[in-house]
């Protein structure tokens, strides 16, 4: 294992301390691993979080126009309810708090328990669950679709609505509208190594890739050989377009790197994705290319499409100033 770390057990706290040193507008609460905005305005509070290893998600999205607090668990493990409760308390200014949860069993339970604890303290809390990964079949019976890069659009849209003075119900409504209109599909080329484990949890052959792999290395839909950027764009967009009708609409596009894929390759992919969307009569309103929701040092990418209406366009374009996203 080659990593720039000290002790594996300290990676989360040391990362967050380093982050705050680079971003003085943020404040770090030790042991509870919460990052919050130093400046507090009276508005609906937004809290997200989850296991670490997906940086800049979620602490990188704390700041004006996006989140008010982000809660980190250990690498790929949900934060415990006491940590999430601290995030809620920091984000609450009396107007209520919205939790933005990615759809994983652990996050649903820990954020759910924290919501109960916060409500016992008299804080009004609502929650939305992001499930944008079309690699997983949607299901009301099982955990169902995972939450991946589309979550960043939910942070952006809900954050803009809260910054504009929207009520908790209004902020929740636009968050749910975003969730209903966002779809993602990813692929992986190399595994990632958890600092506490020291070796990869699975292997991919020299010439092998996995379509639909999750951001914790969860199995995808198919293992296949290395493809060209054009072929990959075709596969990933194909899955997304088969799942939801984007034809004739205006979309925001996110080309997301999983950690070890160079921006050069993400731009090449974007060049191909644009062609496919054009062929499908989809107008691109705004494009984001970068590492937004990563999986440690995994190589690979995801493509996210968000179908926009006038309200979502306005909220997407509203200014935000966070370490990882500035509009």
């Amino acid at each position, binding site marked *: 294992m080659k990593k720039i770390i000290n002790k594996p057990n300290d990676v989360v706290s040391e990362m967050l301390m380093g982050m705050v040193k680079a971003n003085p507008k943020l404040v770090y609460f030790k042991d509870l691993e919460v990052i919050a905005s130093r400046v507090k305005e009276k508005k609906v509070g937004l809290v997200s979080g989850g296991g670490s290893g997906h940086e800049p998600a979620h602490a990188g999205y704390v700041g004006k126009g996006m989140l008010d607090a982000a809660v980190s*668990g*250990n690498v790929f493990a949900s934060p415990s309810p*006491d940590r999430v409760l601290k995030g809620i308390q920091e984000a609450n200014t009396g107007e209520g708090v919205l939790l933005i949860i990615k759809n994983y*069993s652990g996050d649903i*339970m820990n954020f759910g*328990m924290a919501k109960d604890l916060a409500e016992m303290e008299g804080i009004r809390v609502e929650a939305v669950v992001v499930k944008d990964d079309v690699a997983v079949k949607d299901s009301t019976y099982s*955990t169902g679709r995972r939450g991946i890069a589309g979550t960043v659009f939910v942070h952006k849209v809900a954050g803009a609505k809260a910054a504009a003075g929207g009520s908790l119900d209004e902020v929740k409504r636009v968050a749910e509208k975003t969730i209903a209109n966002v779809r993602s599909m990813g692929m992986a080329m190399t595994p990632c190594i958890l600092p506490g484990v020291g070796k990869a949890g699975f292997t991919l052959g020299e010439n092998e890739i996995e379509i639909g792999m*999750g951001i914790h290395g969860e199995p995808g839909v198919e293992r296949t050989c290395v493809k060209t950027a054009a072929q990959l764009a075709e596969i990933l967009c194909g899955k997304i377009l088969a799942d939801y009708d984007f034809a004739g609409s205006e979309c925001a596009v996110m080309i997301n790197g999983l950690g070890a894929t160079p921006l050069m390759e993400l731009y090449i992919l974007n060049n191909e994705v644009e062609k496919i969307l054009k062929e499908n009569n989809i107008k691109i309103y705004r494009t984001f290319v970068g590492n937004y929701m990563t999986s440690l040092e995994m190589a690979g990418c995801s493509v996210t499409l968000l179908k926009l209406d006038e309200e979502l366009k306005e909220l997407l374009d509203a200014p935000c100033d966070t370490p990882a996203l500035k509009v």
Partner: protein
Amino acid sequence: MVICITPKEYVEYIELVAKKIEENKDYISELDSITGDGDHWANMNMGFQKLLECKEELASMRLNEMFKKIGMLIMTTVGGSSGVLYGSAYINASKVILDKEQMDLQLLCRVLEAELNAIMDRGNAKPGFKTMIDALHPAVERLKNAIEKGLDGKTALIELKQGAIEGMNSTKNMEAVKGRACYQANKGVGHLDPGAVTMCYQIEVLVDYLCR
């Protein structure tokens, strides 16, 4: 056989569970790396080691306060899914203990049932989902039946243990519905659920301790 569990005895039981979990590191880790992400043993072990660190304080508390404290300690140290599930279980159990200084067989049964209900509620899960519930649910049912039939304490406890063991074994052929194992193509079929195994350990150790 008369069953009467005080905080001091419950802490002795916790020590035995910690030992049992410690001894089964390789087995549990391996089971979990087949179907999950391989951290179940490490998380559970961390939780029980933390309880050992606090054993003097725990033994000196009132029974319901001790259950609540155990719940909070597990929730904050274990993290992930197991932390919040065991945390919810212990906190819910503290509510049925009320001001009782010790547990008899009937109260033990109500405590276990409160734990089961908390885990099912928080996890939004039922028996048959290939989880820890599949060890605890049949165990509680068997104990309840034994008490209703008026069986003696020792026989009732053996029923509890048998229910847990058979329940744990039944997870081998189940398909996972919740958690990381449900993303596997075969949904973990052919392997025991590690959460059901560690749940079964706790019940086995409890029964062996009470029947010592």
